[in-house]
């Protein structure tokens, strides 16, 4: 690899370094009239935790996946079970994610979606904290490559 090519990668690496959470999706094969499952691989920056979809406190902002682009409907989202962690600022344990985890999303092609390669798109909204600070709610783009047959 040439030096000039590596220099072009630097901004991407620096951007990735600043992300609190990254998400990637494995390409998936789906049949037109049937629901199919896509898996999202989510990685939180070390030292951080994010609220699960049901964080045990109404004031906390839950992690939420929406898919609204590319001609697909969401049949269901399977959020993994988080870990109950007790923090000094909360009376009850909070349900949180840390490290790497997977979200399963069952999709179904809308009637007008053409067969072939498609891209289901949406957002993952989350709110992350460390032991000593919290970050405002953020959303990351989610793209799922679908081979629709």
């Amino acid at each position, binding site marked *: 690899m040439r030096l000039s090519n590596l220099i072009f990668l630097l901004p991407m690496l620096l951007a990735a*370094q600043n992300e609190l959470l990254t998400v990637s999706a494995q390409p998936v094969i789906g049949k037109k009239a049937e629901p199919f499952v896509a898996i999202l691989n989510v990685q939180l920056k070390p030292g951080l935790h994010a609220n699960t979809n049901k964080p045990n406190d109404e004031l906390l902002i839950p992690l939420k996946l929406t898919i609204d682009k590319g001609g697909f409907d969401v049949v269901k989202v399977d959020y993994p079970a988080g870990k109950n962690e007790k923090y000094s600022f909360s009376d009850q344990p909070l349900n949180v994610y840390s490290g790497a985890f997977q979200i399963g999303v069952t999709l179904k092609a809308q009637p007008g979606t053409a067969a072939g390669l498609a891209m289901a798109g949406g957002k993952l909204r989350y709110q992350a904290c460390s032991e000593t600070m*919290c970050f405002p709610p953020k959303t990351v783009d989610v793209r799922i490559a679908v081979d629709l047959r």
Partner: protein
Amino acid sequence: MYRLIFIGVCMFGLLTGCGSSPDTVRAAVKPVSTRKVAAPFTLKDADGKPLVLADYKGKVVLLNFWATWCGPCKIEIPWFIEFEKTYRDKGFAVIGVSMDDDGWAVVKPYMAKAGINYRMTIGDEQTAMKYGGVDSLPTSYMIDREGRVAAVHIGLVSKEDYVKDIEELLRAAK
């Protein structure tokens, strides 16, 4: 060859940098000569009255950016309630700036539950930008009697750190 090794080391540094979690920043009180004027703002308080930062000139102010969804922020709030009681008559005030998107609908009930005794307002993007964007919470600014930023605390710091700052700034000549 050496160039490739150098690039490899740089890449390793960048990638391992991904593993570092954000750290609390506790800045000591700055010397007077290096302090900058706190950005002015006017926002509505919980009673709908204008909260004008400039009106606090002559007082030491703890300006705290927080949110109801921020756990570490809630550890500090009882300290701030105590500071307001202890130091109010000595020329000190706490101002809370909530960064909740849902505004007073969530902040007022929380204020009542926590027994918050200091003035509160709802922050907006414009105010946050004046204070560097407030990328993480809690973020607190210690403002001296002349309206200058004397210290900034990003993330949860100890109660003793706040007490030290407040007492040092209150000791300064009026």
